[in-house]
């Protein structure tokens, strides 16, 4: 039989029992829909994490104290396990691939001013910080190089801090007290949102690191050094350069291990992406179970259909249909049914993903790959679960089948 005739015959017999066909297809519709929704949510989460990591800054490298490889290896007595302003300055001077370098000195304070007080993190940074994190003020301006040199008491507020202390939005020009030291607010930063781990990046106050050291912390040790390159391609080379400069700065011999770690964004991103990829795969696997259940539904209905149509099979065999003709006919029917269900399921899945994205506020991505996979998978389900009933039909004895009432 020609393929066009086969599909026509299959479509006819499927349409003869509309309600039953609809209910059978529903299993596949739900299965494919669920897979697509789950993958869309998973990929959306992945995309959001990628966006947040890009949000940390462009082409950013992070130097933190302590060796990356510590497992079982002694660091040695008196090893120089800290970062200093001198390290940052040396990087700034000698780094040929680094477009900007900023030390970051952390401390937590209770800030008083405006409407009340607020506990937040103060970071002492240089003016390059703005460039590295790609973070511009929405009001006022960032502090200037002269503020840094003059150790002036100026502060730039994160959006969350500004909102809490100055709900009316007139923060610039006001005074805030950090550990009883009055600082003048020169700017408010634009909103950056949460990190992948849920930390509010806007709950922060930035001040010149020079001021920080003399007025607040009184220490010359710093939490991390941020640096950036002008292009992403320079990152691996820049990472090596930083390592060399840092080893020199810390006077490490050839046998000494690094007492600091240089990481780039990609490493952070990959760790986070790995976690969401596992989550996406898990969600898709759970959703696939419903697709298998849908397939079993098809098998069930095809078995009923073969029994009901025993006489039809007998007639077809009497007029010359081979077993393989009957097999093909029933297989095509189950594939047409599961494919139609799969296509409807794609619509349901894409619609559902968009709706969930809107209602729950989750970001979802339209998974083109998952769409093709779902179509292929539903056809495979049709063949797999349609084969047993089809073979049962093909093996009927024509005499018995013709006599069947």
């Amino acid at each position: 039989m020609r393929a066009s005739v086969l599909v026509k015959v299959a479509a006819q017999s499927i349409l003869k029992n509309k309600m039953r066909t609809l209910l059978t297809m529903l299993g596949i519709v739900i299965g494919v829909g669920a897979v697509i929704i789950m993958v869309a949510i998973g990929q959306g989460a992945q995309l959001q994490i990628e966006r947040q990591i890009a949000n940390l800054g462009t082409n950013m490298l992070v130097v933190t104290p302590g060796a990356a490889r510590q497992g079982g290896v002694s660091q040695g007595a008196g090893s120089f396990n800290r970062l200093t302003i001198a390290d940052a300055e040396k990087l700034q001077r000698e780094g040929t691939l680094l477009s900007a370098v900023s030390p970051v000195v952390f401390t937590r304070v209770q800030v008083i001013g405006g409407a009340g007080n607020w506990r937040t993190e103060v970071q002492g940074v240089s003016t390059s910080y703005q460039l590295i994190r790609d973070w511009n003020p929405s009001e006022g301006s960032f502090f200037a190089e002269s503020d840094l040199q003059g150790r002036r008491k100026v502060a730039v507020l994160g959006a969350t801090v500004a909102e809490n202390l100055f709900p009316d939005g007139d923060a610039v020009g006001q005074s805030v007290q950090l550990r009883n030291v009055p600082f003048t607010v020169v700017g408010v930063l634009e909103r950056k949102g949460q990190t992948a781990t849920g930390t509010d990046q806007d709950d922060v106050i930035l001040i010149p690191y020079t001021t920080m050291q003399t007025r607040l912390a009184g220490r010359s040790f710093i939490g991390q050094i941020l640096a950036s390159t002008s292009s992403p391609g320079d990152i691996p080379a820049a990472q090596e350069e930083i390592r060399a400069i840092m080893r020199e700065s810390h006077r490490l011999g050839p046998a000494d291990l690094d007492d600091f770690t240089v990481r780039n964004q990609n490493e952070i991103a990959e760790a986070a992406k790995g976690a969401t990829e596992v989550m996406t795969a898990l969600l898709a696997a759970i959703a696939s179970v419903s697709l298998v259940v849908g397939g079993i539904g098809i098998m069930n209905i095809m078995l009923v259909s073969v029994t009901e149509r025993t006489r039809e099979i007998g007639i077809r065999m009497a007029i010359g249909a081979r077993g393989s003709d009957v097999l093909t006919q029933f297989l095509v029917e189950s594939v047409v049914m599961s494919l139609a269900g799969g296509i409807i399921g794609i619509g349901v899945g894409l619609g559902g993903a968009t709706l969930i994205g809107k209602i729950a506020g989750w970001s979802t991505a339209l998974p083109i790959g998952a769409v093709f996979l779902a179509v292929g998978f539903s056809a495979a389900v049709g063949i797999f679960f349609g084969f047993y009933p089809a073979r049962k039909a093909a093996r009927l004895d024509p005499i018995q089948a013709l006599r069947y009432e």
Partner: protein
Amino acid sequence: MTTNEQDVIRVEGLTKVYSSGRNEVRALRGVDLRVKRGEMIAVMGTSGSGKSTLMNILGCLDSPTSGSYELEGVRVDGLSRNELADLRNRKLGFVFQGFNLLARTSALDNVELPLLYDRSGKKRDTRAMAREALRRVGLAEREDHHPSELSGGQQQRVAIARALVTEPALILADEPTGNLDTRTSLEIMALFQELNDAGITILLVTHEPDIAQYAKRIIVVRDGRIIRDEPVANRRRAADDLRDFREDAETEVAA
């Protein structure tokens, strides 16, 4: 050899034994039969006589236990399921008591069906062939009707058209008038006689002696053997009987 080519069916020493558990049922106990081209044979016998088994074997739906069966000079016993299916498709046409049309399928599609299972690979206008077959049984105007929209007689005509469409060597009709009233039975028998006159070989099973009188030859099967095989002495014409039947009906209405 020339006589052999004339034979549509040549059966020798045909036996069929069904074994269910320890019981053996010998449905056929040695049947010899020759059917020449252009014959019209009525096979009679009570139920359990073995006539259904004989028809199933002649119809290539079943294989004999022993004996030989040649259909148009081709040995049939020992063929595979697929080979039998192809033989049924090309050389045989079936007409059943219960019509056995596909429901919710138009008359034309029903008639076209055997052509769609053809494996010879010839390019043919199957649609036109199906229309021609329907025209031959006088249902050209009903090609779009579904079986449920047709009378019993019309359904049987569609079934006959389906049997004709492949131009088979033999049409096997199993109680073709069993589900029909007298008048429609006469119409169907008139059609069979007309087709037979056009050279088509017909083998029909019936238990009605009246119907058997329209054949050229009657075979009686009993206990798995052919006990009588003789030509019909005064063959009746169904078309004449139909005319008489109609006149009788009209006089009844007039009276």
